[in-house]
C-alpha cells in the first residue's frame, strides 16, 4: 500500500484486498463450527494462517508483519498451547484428565454446545495458525538475511 514496489502486481493486490477478509472469516467459521460440521481447530487454524500468508505474498512482508508480527505470532502460539493444556488440566479438578465438568453440554446442533470442545478447537486453531505463520515468517526472514550477505 505505502510501498508500491513491494509485493505483486496491482491485479493481485486488488483481488487480495477483496478476498483476504473472506478467507480469514472462513477460517474462523471453520474453527467455531468445529463441533457441528466437518473441520475443527487444525484445519481452521491452517486457513487462518493462510490468510496472513496470502497477505504477505501479495503485499510484501512489511504489511503482513504490521498486522501480525513475528513476536506476536510466537506469543499467540504459546498462548494456544497453554490454553489447551490448562483446559485439559482443569479436568483434574473434577476427577480425571480432559473431564468436562464446568460447561454444560447444551442442546446439540447449536453453536454453544458440546462443553469444552469449542474451547479446545479455539486453542488448537490459535496454536496451529500462529505456529504455521511463525514458520513461514522465519523462513522468509532467513532467506532475506542470507541474500543481504
Amino acid at each position: 500500500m505505502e510501498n508500491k514496489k513491494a509485493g505483486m502486481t496491482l491485479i493481485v493486490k486488488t483481488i487480495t484486498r477483496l478476498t483476504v477478509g473472506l478467507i480469514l472469516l472462513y477460517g474462523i467459521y471453520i474453527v467455531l463450527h468445529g463441533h457441528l460440521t466437518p473441520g475443527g481447530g487444525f484445519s481452521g487454524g491452517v486457513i487462518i494462517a493462510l490468510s496472513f500468508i496470502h497477505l504477505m505474498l501479495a503485499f510484501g512482508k512489511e504489511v503482513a508483519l504490521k498486522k501480525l508480527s513475528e513476536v506476536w505470532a510466537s506469543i499467540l502460539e504459546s498462548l494456544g498451547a497453554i490454553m489447551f493444556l490448562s483446559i485439559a488440566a482443569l479436568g483434574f479438578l473434577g476427577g480425571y484428565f480432559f473431564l468436562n465438568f464446568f460447561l454444560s453440554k447444551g442442546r446439540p446442533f447449536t453453536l454453544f454446545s458440546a462443553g469444552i470442545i469449542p474451547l479446545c478447537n479455539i486453542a488448537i486453531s490459535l496454536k496451529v495458525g500462529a505456529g504455521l505463520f511463525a514458520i513461514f515468517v522465519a523462513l522468509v526472514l532467513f532467506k532475506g538475511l542470507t541474500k543481504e550477505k
Partner: protein
Amino acid sequence: MELHLLLLFMIFAALVAVEIEDLLSSVIAVGAVGLGLSLAFLILKAPDLAITQLVVEILCLIILIRATIKKDLPLIRDGRWLFNTVSTILFIVFFLIFSYFALKELPDFGQPIMKVAKEYIKDGLLKTGASNLVASIILDFRGYDTLGEATVLFTAVIGVLVVIRKVGRINGK
C-alpha cells in the same frame, strides 16, 4: 516382573549410551533403549504404540548411524563378506519363519472391525453433545492423543524458529 526387568535394562542401556566413548556403540545403545521401550509397550497391552515406537526407533537409528558413521570409523570392511552374507541369509530365514507363524495368527481382513467405534457412534452425541463425531473423538474421547499431537507441533515450530534464527543472526552480524 518383566516390566521391571525391562525398565532396568533400559536404564542400564541409557547409562551405557551416555558414558561410552565410541560414538557408534552409543547410538546402538540408544537403539537398545528404544527396543526395550517398544517391548514395554507390548507388555502393557498397547501393540499399536509398540509398532509405532519400533518404526520410529528404526528410522532414528538409521539417521543417527548415517550421521555418526563418518565421524569415527573403527570398522573393518574387508575380509568379512562370508560372515556378513551368512548372517544376512540367516536373518532372512528367521524373519520368514517367524512371519509365517505370526501372519497365520492374524484375524481375517476387516473382521473385528468397529468394536470401539460402535460405542463412539452410539454414545458420542449423548456423552459430548457435539454433532461432529470426529471432533468429539479427537477432543474428548481421545483428547490425550490430541494433546500429544499439539505438543509435537509446538516442538516442531520451536525447533524451526530456533534453528533458523540462529543461522540468521550469525549471517546478519
